[in-house]
């Protein structure tokens, strides 16, 4: 799977979801991202991601519901004297929160293919030549992350057996300082290893130049068409915005921006069983 095609699709999903306040189009992008990921990697590998996204989205909904006491359709009310949460709880605030939660969920799921479907080197290969050294350094540093978490577990265990006990934030220095020092040393050793293999010695070549396969072109073309179609529809006034306040209204839906959003389902076909 070509990281440039993934990047194109992710970017278009984000542009659409962030450029409109209409929850109908946000919902379509959210479903497209979710379906594409499920078809590529399966639900099992997505469990943690979905749990995290769900948590953040629900938090956003509740935050808006509890804090925005606007709107005419009052569901219930707490006395105004109750600090922070007192006041009317409205259907409009709930709907606006749901719309915000969908925005966050769609944006996170649109970016998720980078971590779920591509390797750091795929992303690095997709970068323009001018950024290839930076990309290599980032890919290399990502390889250190697992060793840092192992180091934390190992050091905290060993320090406990040495007699250390967590007594307030300052006591954690006895664990965190060695982990940070070890991570810094690991980074230096990695840099040494890169230097010893000629890193930054001149223009780089690439072992596997990223080529767009036909299926990648399909995703890129569909994404470009979706972007063009949606921006055009916005400019023409066909993709109307939505306002939750002061009274809740149904979001408008037009077949032309709807068709543009449906193009984002292209990866459901091309990414199937790739992950």
């Amino acid at each position, binding site marked *: 799977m070509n990281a440039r095609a993934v990047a194109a699709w992710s970017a278009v999903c984000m542009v659409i979801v962030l450029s409109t306040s209409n929850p109908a189009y946000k919902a379509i992008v959210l479903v497209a991202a979710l379906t594409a990921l499920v078809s590529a990697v399966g639900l099992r590998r997505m469990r943690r991601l979905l749990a995290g996204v769900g948590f953040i989205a629900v938090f956003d909904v509740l935050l808006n519901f509890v804090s925005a006491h606007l709107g005419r359709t009052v569901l219930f009310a707490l006395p105004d004297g109750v600090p922070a949460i007192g006041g009317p709880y409205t259907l409009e605030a709930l709907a606006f929160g749901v719309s915000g939660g969908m925005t966050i969920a769609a944006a996170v799921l649109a970016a998720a293919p980078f971590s779920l479907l591509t390797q750091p080197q795929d992303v690095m290969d997709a970068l323009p030549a001018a950024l290839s050294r930076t990309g290599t350094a980032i890919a290399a540093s990502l390889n250190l992350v697992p060793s840092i978490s192992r180091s934390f577990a190992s050091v905290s265990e060993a320090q406990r057996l040495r007699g250390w006990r967590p007594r307030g934030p300052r006591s954690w220095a006895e664990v965190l300082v060695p982990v940070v020092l070890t991570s810094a040393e690991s980074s230096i*050793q990695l840099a040494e290893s890169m230097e010893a293999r000629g890193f930054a010695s001149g223009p780089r070549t690439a072992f596997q130049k990223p080529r767009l396969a036909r299926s990648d072109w399909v995703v890129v073309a569909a994404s470009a068409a979706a972007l063009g179609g949606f921006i055009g529809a916005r400019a023409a006034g066909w993709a109307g915005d939505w306002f939750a306040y002061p009274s809740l209204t149904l979001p408008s839906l037009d077949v032309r921006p709807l068709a543009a959003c449906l193009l984002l389902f292209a990866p459901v076909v091309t990414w199937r069983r790739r992950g």
Partner: protein
Amino acid sequence: MATARLRHLTYSYAGSHAPALDDVTVELGEGLTLVTGPSGGGKSTLLRLLNGLVPHFHGGRVAGAAESAGLDVIGTPTRVLARHVGFVFQDPELQAVYDTVEREVAFGLENTSVPAAAMAGRIDDALHQAGAHHLAHRRLSTLSGGERQRVALASVLAMQPRTVVLDEPTSQLDPGGAALVLDATLRFKESGRSVVIAEHRLERLALAAEQVVRVEHGRVEHVTAGVAQKRIEVSRGGAAGGEAWTLDGVTAGFAGCPVLDRVNLAGRQGEVLVLCGPNGGGKTTLLRTIAGVLKPLAGTVQRRPGRIAYLPQNPTALLHRPTVRSEVELTLEWSGENERADAILSELGLLDVAGRYPRDLSSGERQRAALAAVLAGRPRLVLLDEPTRGMDLGARTALTALVARLRDQGASVVLATHDEWLRESLADRTVQVCNGGVTG
């Protein structure tokens, strides 16, 4: 043509007054050069000089002249020397840039502008030479330490250097993994190119070496190889006492995927129990279960009261105090024991470096400093996970004597080790840990 020539070469690391290499004049011929010497003597500095990491990467002060693979080391940056002198480091986990084997081997070729069309063949050849061809499409995270180190060697060989330098490449590996790495190294040497290697497993290399140099106190001299590493005779303090810990039907590891399955085992006071077995067999899990840091999924673990000293696989990661002495004092303070830090520092030969920052020491000295920090005082249960990794003979001898003393004072000692020398020197009892079970 000589592999390397040094003329009155003196080098000091930045911020250090004592030279790491002191007025060295030496010529390394072609073929296999074995570099020996005690920890902290300057071996790693000499090796890094050969590909320019010293002084170009590490900075510091340098005087004299050095030539490696026909190039002036001081006037040639490492990234240029890298095309002629390859370098394999000690830790296989800290030299990988990519996550897949083929890409990792291609890294040096990409850096040195090798055309893409020529890469596949060179990668294939290098993986064959390193005995890692079957790993070509694997992810590095799925490889054992020995396999990763062979991939590191392949990534250097792909650059077709005239010389390959290896800094204790097998110190982190089990005997099987180490043998495969050394086999690959010897094959490279037999292909007519030069190898310079610092290594503690001297037996096989000494037979093939064209020359042996000894590095000590920053001085380098040609020597005749002396490789006998005889078992240390450790006097016994008496018979083992009562049970110090017991595992009764213990299953441990991850739910649904236990590493230990219904293990029954016990250790006695004043006894050294050695755990053997292949990597991944469950030795570390067993040690952590005995220590109580890993709760068993089933069964019971019982221990006599008293301090536990636990040395993890990478003990130098613990070091963070300003001096070696203060590391030991911290353990004594935490455990509430009134003992002088200098006692154990003397036992492990660390008094000379007691006032130094532990992370500035050589890898062997750091390992001993970590041992001192963990084993200070009078622990009742001593659990050591591969304690001799990267240690030279002197350090191993000191460790053996220290463990024998703790045992004679009544401590129950459990060692997980591949080191036959250590096992023969210390074991009262040996058990095999394999496939989740314990036999012996």
